[in-house]
């Protein structure tokens, strides 16, 4: 009950506060539109906005899928060998420290317009959290369990599949939850820098025509997409890691 009711109540209160502020302070919708303005804008062209949402969401999902698959594979390879891990960790940390958002204009130069540079940006921003979390998880199996595996003469593969990987799952999901909002941010940055379609492009266009309520409608849709993705990951987590949080 409270798992649904409390989050819903929080959302309702937030919207109410937003409404109250715009009404009480007589804020010009040009600066901060009220929730009613935003909803009205949405209902003027619902098909258009939902279509653009779908465009952005597709880029996010494709990029996220690539980042997660690649991130898991890279993390497993790195965690397989202490030597490889030590060698590549500083490089990974360095690449991770580069603000990927700053690469957006470069990607435009390299890949032109269209879906590709946006998807690549999604991959770039969401890849590292997955790698770092997975590696941390894979190297976190407690000493006793490693000793147990060794005493049973388990092979590397048996130890990996039966102990290390399941042990890493809760941390892998932490990485995935960090990566989901980043994936959306990546797609939107890509669309803002080289607008074609998608909600980022809608935001860029709305500022050109001073249509603040439209920008807000796009932002709200992005936020909703973010929430949906986050809860989707959390739902998969509950299925995959039923023992987590209970110990």
């Amino acid at each position, binding site marked *: 009950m409270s798992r649904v009711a409390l989050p819903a109540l929080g959302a309702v209160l937030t919207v109410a506060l937003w409404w109250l502020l715009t009404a009480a302070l007589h804020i010009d919708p040009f600066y901060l539109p009220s929730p009613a303005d935003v909803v009205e804008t949405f209902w003027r062209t619902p098909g258009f906005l939902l279509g653009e949402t779908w465009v952005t969401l597709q880029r996010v999902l494709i990029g996220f899928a690539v980042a997660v698959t690649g991130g898991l594979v890279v993390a497993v390879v790195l965690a397989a060998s202490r030597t490889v891990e030590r060698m590549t960790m500083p490089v990974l940390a360095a690449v991770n420290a580069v603000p990927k958002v700053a690469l957006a204009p470069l990607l435009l130069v390299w890949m032109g317009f269209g879906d590709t540079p946006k998807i690549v940006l999604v991959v770039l921003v969401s890849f590292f959290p997955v790698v770092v979390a997975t590696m941390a998880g894979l190297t976190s199996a*407690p000493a*006793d*369990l490693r*000793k*147990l*595996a*060794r*005493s*049973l*003469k*388990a092979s590397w593969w*048996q130890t990996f599949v*039966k*102990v290390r990987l*399941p*042990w890493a799952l809760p941390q892998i999901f932490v990485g995935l939850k960090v990566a989901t909002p980043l994936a959306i941010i990546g797609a939107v940055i890509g669309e803002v820098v080289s607008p074609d379609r998608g909600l980022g492009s809608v935001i860029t266009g709305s500022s050109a025509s001073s249509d603040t309520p439209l920008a807000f409608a796009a932002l709200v849709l992005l936020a909703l997409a973010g929430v949906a993705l986050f809860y989707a990951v959390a739902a998969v987590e509950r299925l995959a*890691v*039923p*023992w987590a949080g*209970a*110990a």
Partner: protein
Amino acid sequence: MITVSAVGQTFPGPVEALADITLRVDDGEFVTLIGRSGCGKSTLLNLMAGLLRPTRGTIAIDGTPVTEPRRDVGLVFQQPALLPWRSVEANVLLPAEIFGRRGSSYRTRAAELLEMTGLSAFRQKLPHELSGGMQQRVALCRALLPRPSVLLMDEPFSALDALTREELAVELQRLHLDLGTTIVFVTHSIQEAVLLADRVVVLTDRPGRLREIVQVDIPRPRSFGYNAHLDEVAAASARLHDLLH
């Protein structure tokens, strides 16, 4: 039979953990290793388990030198070390899976062991749904599943509360009588040593050397409560106390 011949262990540092240990554990015998913290008793156990190679001397089980872990040696640690995503039964069956044997005989064996330790009703539970004492019972069943000839236990009850400890010690004694497995049991509790052991091996402070081997000739089953052998228990405890202080 476990034969420890002139074994010494020096860790990088150098830290001399064990010096000149010679010891024989007979088949079916229950031996406890006792000593103060850091005296190398766990090191000696790890050497017997083949998890460490001795710097000096040799260790053999049934005449074969121990150079790596053996599948006929079971291990129980201070922590249960269960896989949190596996049911009690699946945890107990882990060794069979790793040995690549999925026969129904192991399932029967697991059911028997769980029955003996009073866990039958909890077969399908996950470890976190069990108390600490029950988790350690599961770890014991797991170690016993492949019918090991030797069971090595490293302070297995020291993370448990006093009452659970006594309960498990009595239960272990019963299992030992039933199964006849050779057991080497590390502890720092005199009470536990006297209750469980045929012989108590007392180690000196670092580097651990053999201080003395105390024979405990109290009839089994022994218990912590009032029984017919209070004087013998008191005498053995006092003797160990003197040797350790």
